[in-house]
């Protein structure tokens, strides 16, 4: 390989390494940002579970949480759980719409609705007895 050719390959190596490094940096920042974001979400979810238990006065553990994935900045979550002891979703479920900032380890319950026993998928057609924001937003069919 001639000196010129070696020099061109050296330049190419430097450019490639720089591009790879920049891509790596972007991926690293994206990863750390995602971890931090998920940690915040997890902490909020812990508060949501405590809020559901406090609101319903039940110490039920197998709660399900639905997040608003279409709006990443949204803090609105819907937490559902059985209103009597039993396997997950086997009993009547109470679903609470929880939003806002954490105050004294709880968040605000804006409203909610019920789901009949054995409802696996939370659909509008299955919901009943909407209250609060759920009623004004017409989240229930019945």
């Amino acid at each position, binding site marked *: 390989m001639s000196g010129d050719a070696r020099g061109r390959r050296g330049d190419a190596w430097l450019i*490639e390494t720089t591009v790879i490094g920049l891509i790596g940096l*972007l991926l690293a920042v994206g990863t750390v940002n*995602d971890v931090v974001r998920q940690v*915040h979400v*997890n902490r909020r*979810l*812990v508060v949501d579970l405590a809020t559901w238990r406090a609101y319903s006065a039940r110490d039920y553990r197998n709660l399900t949480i639905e997040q608003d*994935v279409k709006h*990443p900045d949204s803090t609105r979550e819907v937490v559902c759980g059985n209103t009597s002891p039993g396997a997950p979703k086997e009993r009547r479920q109470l679903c609470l719409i929880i939003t806002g900032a954490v105050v004294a380890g709880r968040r605000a319950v804006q409203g909610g609705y019920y789901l009949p026993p054995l409802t696996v998928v939370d659909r509008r057609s299955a919901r009943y007895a909407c209250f609060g924001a759920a009623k004004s937003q017409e989240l229930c069919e019945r």
Partner: protein
Amino acid sequence: MSSLAEHPPPPPPLPGSAGRARRLAPALAALCALLALAATAEIVLDGALDHSALIPRSPAIAGWLAGIGERLGYRVFLIALLAFSAAYAVLLALAGRGALARLRPRWAIGLVGALQLIVFAGPILLSTDVFSYIAYARMGVVHGLNPYLHGPSAITGDPIYHYVGTDWKLVATAYGPLYTLLSYPLAPLGVKGALWGMKAMALLASAGTLALVWRCARLRGLDPVFALLAVGANPLYVIYGLGGAHNDLLMTFLMMAAVALTLTGRSSSTRQAWAGATVVAGALIKATGAVLLPYMVLSSDLGGHRSRRRLAPIAGAALAVLVGALAAYVAFGVHGVDIVAALNRDAAFVSTDSFPTEVAHLFGKPGVFPIDHTLLKGALAAILLYLMWLTWRGYDWVAASGWALLAIVVTSTWLLAWYTLWPLPLALVTRERRLLWAILAVQALFIVHQISPLLAPVR
């Protein structure tokens, strides 16, 4: 694998602090090896107890291990994975600096073998894919259904159905026809028998890959012990790849077999034709394996006459495509041949661990949109073409293939841990060290992305 006696003798002892550091290296390596073994055993023993968020529901194949551990949760799993990763990093650093040269290769082989056997003895870890493999096999053999036309939901009465992942119950197979045909003999063995068969197939493919990595590293004048440790003691390879009995291991085995054929048969057109055919065989396991072919064909690294040299792998590949397509058509009809449709379907999937999703979140988007898929495909095509041009100009085709596979991993919106294993064996048989560091960095980022349950557990 080449004779161990052929391994170069250890270097003479160094004076002063460098000599002391080198003397301490075996002890540190032994400590790291024990840590890796303990972390693997912890995951396997805890996983054997019962299903959890990390252990899929499975027929009881590891019940005899169940009395020792506790149910595997995120905390213990992530601590074990991080400990294993740290041990792996130190082992690689020591091996890379030649500090383990005094240790016999048997030590590295023993460690890698023990890691593989611990995982083999345990339950299926972290993925339901293997149950899909068995379901597709049972659909074809037991129920007379075409797995390229129906998802496992067509066999709801079959005992394997309950173990198939929820997301995959309606999905027809996207795996290559060769893999589907290879899995058919396991179907009559029952669910447990087929599961052990899948685990054995993954173990054998892994052992074959590691043997070929060793052989190819030696052929290229690289350190085979470093190469063996870098692949065989890799935490994602052991825990996710082998732990889930993924068919990716079979694809990487065939990829490495193709590399070995080109390295041992530089002047033999027949061997190069076989190399081309072997790449196609890998692609008939999982279509991603086809990525190697253009780089192999464009390589100027192969011996012999230039035009004949390029013709041999093309001819071998073309013949293999013909035979494979004919067999697939006879066995599965036109749907068994149409791998492109399955790839297009899978390319639309999005996983939370994928880098495009993470970057989308970074820019405040909820996830990737259709336009992002198009942009990513364009970027991937540009990278693949650039690598082809480099290979044409004399760049190592094995390294180019590794970069191409890594580019697929990084640009894919559907990223799973075992996908990061595709380019790893290739990186260990090339002098392009940037490739290895890039793969390890991607794997490290994948592991970092898993740790949020450790920092903020949801109870």
